[in-house]
């Protein structure tokens, strides 16, 4: 195994993982686009309080996997159970109720360009909790902004924020509904190392403060090492390895070793 990437940031402290309570359960999930199979019978359990990192090369189907979990894409075959519900059999209203318990942080942050930070945060809140007073809404917005350390940006437009700030506001927008599950799509992509470190710390803080479970899609080994309780490696449409970070990269599989070495060379 090559030299480990260095990291000095907030390290995830072991939380309480309930191994008898799978909040996400995928069985034999198959998904193709045209003639191109992307996922070939994937099985995955994510337990209450657990952060699972899905590693893989670009185009390996990582983002497809979390879009299937949240019901944005349907599997061609297989079952997807989230919080005890079959995602692909839910009526639109039931799916919306389920999604209110899932936070999804997009790779691009996906903030609403035409609204300032406050309005961005209020959109999911006022539509899911319709009886809130103005004061309660303001308090909830202030709380999540404080959680991500960006209280001063409340009246700014997304175009006035840096890449790291956008990521944080994107995460804050999901936290405002106090989700049971967080899904992060490439949370550190395109960020400088210091900001990436801050995002990694934030992911761990969120998990501890909200007692949530998370699936973190990334190809960043530093992010994987310091946010994941368990790491699974996706390649050729299947999980080829899973376990702790060290267990996964102790493998002699050339696909795993190449992924590790290239990642490290780039960082070096």
């Amino acid at each position, binding site marked *: 195994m090559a030299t480990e990437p260095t990291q000095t940031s907030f390290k995830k402290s072991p939380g309480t993982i309930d191994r008898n309570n799978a909040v996400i359960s995928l069985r034999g999930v198959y998904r193709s686009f045209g003639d191109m199979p992307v996922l070939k019978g994937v099985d995955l359990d994510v337990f209450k309080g657990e952060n699972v990192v899905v590693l893989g090369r670009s185009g390996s189907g990582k983002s497809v996997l979390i879009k299937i979990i949240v019901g*944005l894409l349907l599997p061609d075959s297989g079952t997807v159970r989230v919080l005890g519900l079959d995602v692909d059999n839910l009526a639109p209203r039931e799916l*919306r109720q389920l*999604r*209110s318990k899932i936070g*999804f942080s997009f790779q691009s942050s996906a903030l609403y360009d035409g609204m300032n930070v406050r309005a961005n945060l209020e959109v999911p809140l006022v539509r*899911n909790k319709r009886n809130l007073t103005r004061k309660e809404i303001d308090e909830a917005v202030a709380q999540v902004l404080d959680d991500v350390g960006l209280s001063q940006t409340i009246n700014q437009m997304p175009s006035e924020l840096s890449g790291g700030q956008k990521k944080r506001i994107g995460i804050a927008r999901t936290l405002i509904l106090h989700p049971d599950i967080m899904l992060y799509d490439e949370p550190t992509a395109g960020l400088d190392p210091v900001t990436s470190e801050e995002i990694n710390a934030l992911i761990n803080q969120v998990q501890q403060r909200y007692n949530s479970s998370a699936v973190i899609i990334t190809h960043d080994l530093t992010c994987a090492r310091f946010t994941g309780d368990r790491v699974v490696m996706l390649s050729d449409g299947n999980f080829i390895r899973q376990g702790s970070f060290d267990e996964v990269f102790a493998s002699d599989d050339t696909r795993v070793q190449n992924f590790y070495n290239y990642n490290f060379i780039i960082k070096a």
Partner: protein
Amino acid sequence: MKAFLLRMYDIYEFLVRFYKEAFLPPYEYKEIINQFFDVGIRSLSIISLTGFITGLVFTKQSRSSLAEFGATSWLPSLMAIAIIRALAPLVTALIVAGKVGSHIGAELGSMKVTEQIEAMEVSSTNPFKFLVVSRILATTCILPVLAAYMGLVGMLGAYVNVHLNEETSFTTFFQAAFVRISFVDIGVLVFKSAVYGFTIGFTGCFNGYYADHGTVGVGRAANMSVVVSMFLIFVEEMLIVQLVNSYLH
């Protein structure tokens, strides 16, 4: 042919979903009102200008023909018929299609390709209700108001031309103008404009909501929103005029 039929099915599905989402609660009151102001105010200045110029120029162009028969006194009523029955709804619709339709197509298209619509879906917000229903309702309800406003401004333009040439008073001009205009004409103006408004909102939202292929798709959505809605407006104009002339006049 298969692609065309699939597109038609998408349009049908979009239309059915619109009616379903428009009538079922919860309603996005705040966003609908925002869109009312947005669509109305964004178009007001250009509609004032084009309405006035249309009335002025159309009167000037018609004068010489009527003068040959010594019938310039018919100008006010001729202009009222032309503006209220045809020009105001049609010109207003074409301007709103260019200004608002393209904006809706580009805005929703860029939201689609930057995953903002997906972000609404996963945050348990109904993007169709929030983005599509509010915009289609806004264009449908505001266009009759804008068309009526353009009719008045157009008549003012016509009055300016008539006044400069014949020194006709304001009261005399408008009394002569509205002699030939009935409530049916006003009703048809409102109906036509509402149909055009729906067409503009629907076309813009449909093209934006289904935009793909990144920024190229955004440009295509904006372009298609204008081209298709203008084409449909002319087709609808032809059909409505046929119907109105057959049954109401």
